[in-house]
């Protein structure tokens, strides 16, 4: 009888160890950092940005992280983060956090004021810093902008940046008046960003102008 008890104990211990060994230590959470361009005429697109924020709030799961930051004259600062949250692992708490998040971003997007310059690179560096701190398994930066960087003379951004394992998605990249005159400017701008982002080690570069197509990007995550 003792032998049987011993065998049973060993089996239970084995199963427990196997279960512990099987535990997946990788992070399945995802983190999204959304940059909203405030510059010039693009500030009028704030309504669409609200749609994207709401879509992401509906898609992100408990345990995920989300931050919305503005792109302005110089964006490499925490002060530009409008709202950020690491959603609780409990669904009920996460829902409450999402409501609070939505209220915060709504309030901001209704009072957007255009800025003179656009520092997308600074926003990207700030975003990468935020995402790496979250330790999420899947990191995404969404750039809601026309992707026209316009720095003042003092700001320095012409150096290599690091976006390792981060996918970068440019959303609602509107065409400027000059792009309409010469579309090569628009295509060249996107190509230049793609090169820069890829060189920075980004996992993926994507341009989505139809907001409804975001479904395909986040549906499987």
């Amino acid at each position: 009888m003792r032998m049987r008890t011993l065998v049973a104990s060993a089996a239970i211990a084995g199963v427990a160890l196997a279960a512990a060994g099987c535990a997946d230590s990788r992070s399945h959470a995802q983190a999204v950092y959304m940059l909203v361009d405030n510059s010039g005429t693009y500030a009028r697109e704030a309504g669409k940005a609200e749609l994207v924020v709401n879509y992401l709030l509906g898609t992100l799961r408990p345990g995920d992280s989300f931050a919305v930051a503005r792109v302005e004259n110089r964006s490499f600062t925490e002060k530009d983060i409008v709202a950020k949250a690491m959603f609780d692992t409990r669904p009920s708490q996460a829902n409450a956090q999402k409501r609070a998040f939505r209220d915060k971003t709504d309030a901001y997007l209704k009072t957007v004021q255009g800025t003179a310059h656009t520092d997308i690179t600074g926003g990207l560096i700030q975003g990468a810093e935020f995402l790496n701190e979250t330790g999420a398994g899947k990191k995404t930066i969404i750039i809601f902008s026309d992707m026209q960087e316009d720095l003042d003379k003092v700001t320095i951004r012409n150096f290599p940046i690091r976006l390792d394992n981060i996918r970068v998605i440019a959303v609602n990249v509107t065409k400027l008046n000059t792009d309409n005159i010469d579309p090569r400017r628009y295509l060249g701008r996107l190509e230049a960003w793609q090169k820069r982002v890829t060189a920075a080690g980004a996992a993926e570069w994507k341009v989505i102008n139809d907001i409804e197509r975001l479904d395909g990007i986040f549906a499987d995550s």
Partner: protein
Amino acid sequence: MIWPDNAALSVLVLSLITMFVLYAARAPMHGLLRSASHALGGSMRLGARWLFGVAEEMKARNKAVLLAQGRRETGQRIEREFERLGLLVTRDLQGYPTLQRKLLEEITRVEEDYKKCGEVPPPPPDWVDAVTAVAKIKTGGGEVVQKILVDIRQSLESIHDKALAEYRRAYQMRHSILEGFMPYWRSLDKTMKQVDKSMAGMQDAATAVDAQMATYKKIAAKSDEAESTLTNSAFTQFAIAGLVMAVALGGAFVNFKLIALPMSEMVGASDYITASLRTSEVAALVIILVEASMGLFVMESLRITHLFPRIANLNDRMRRRMVWISLGLLLTLAGIESALALMRDMLIADKQALLQSLAATPAAASEGWLSRIPTAGQMVLGFILPFALAFVAVPLESFIHSARTVGGALLVNLVRALAFALRIVGNIARQAGRVLVHAYDVLIVLPLLLEQLVHSLRSGGPAPEARPVDATEKILRPY
């Protein structure tokens, strides 16, 4: 190439050389092919024979296990039938002496009453003869005589009325006695029916015992019929138990769906055991399995199932305690599950409200009490399903017991099929050796024809019989 300019000639010469080399190596090559095919075929036949032996052994062992199991089960059934019979005897025949006394008393009483009924009314007085004699007297027209006769007639009429009244009274009395019979007859009838029913019940029980005893005898005699019956019964049990367990699995799945989401509220929704398996899902699964285990313990403690001999052997006091503990835990888990089902509904509603607010669409109007029906349904389901799952223990036991027989029978057939396949492959290998020997001779057909020609020239007669196809036939003997 011997002659690079003349490829055809080169190939021809090379072929001839090869042919003669092969001819020279004919005997050892035939031997090699034959030995190889024999070795391969022989080992396969050996393997097949061993497998057939194993299958027979397994079949014998399966039969022994099956018969032992059948004997035990039939023995238990007989035991139960005897218990039933004992109960019947105790219940019905224990009161039989009282019943018999009652019957005898009632019969005696009825007999006495019957005798009373048989009493004849009092006979008419003796003077009737005198009256007859007087009636024969001739009046002769005399007034005195006529007067006397009138007086006599009047007296007779009054006496007759009296006698008739007495006669009627006597019959009335007998009728009242007969009427008094009725309750006794009814009681007798009832008692007899009761006795009849008891006897019929005992007869049925005795017939059932007889049938079980006949089965037991067959099993004890280890007859093939008993084995076949038990195997068929095991297959039927296996199929039925499998079906019921599949239904129970469906119930468990519904149960899992009910509590998987709310469990994320307890253990978090972002922890994963594997790439696609969340901790909350595993926790829900564990709760369901614990419920099933508690149900199993309840069934074991009630001695409905006998999967754990240790529990079955516990004394009654301990067993009762175990029933209450398991039932208490099951009840608690059912309560928790019901609460989780409610929480699930609330979480879904909350998520829905959030999505609606994010989509800026107006919230759907509440349907009042109608919208509460699914919530109530989920709660009731959450409470009932753990108890329903507890009954899985019964088909589980049947499944496990019958699986031994079914698995054993299938394994025997599998081993036999394997043995048959090995035997076929062995035969093919042996035949392939012969085919290869023939094919070898086809390759060296020219030297063989030459050899035949030389033989015929030497002997000066007609060409001798063709050489044996197998050059090693004289050397190697089949084993």
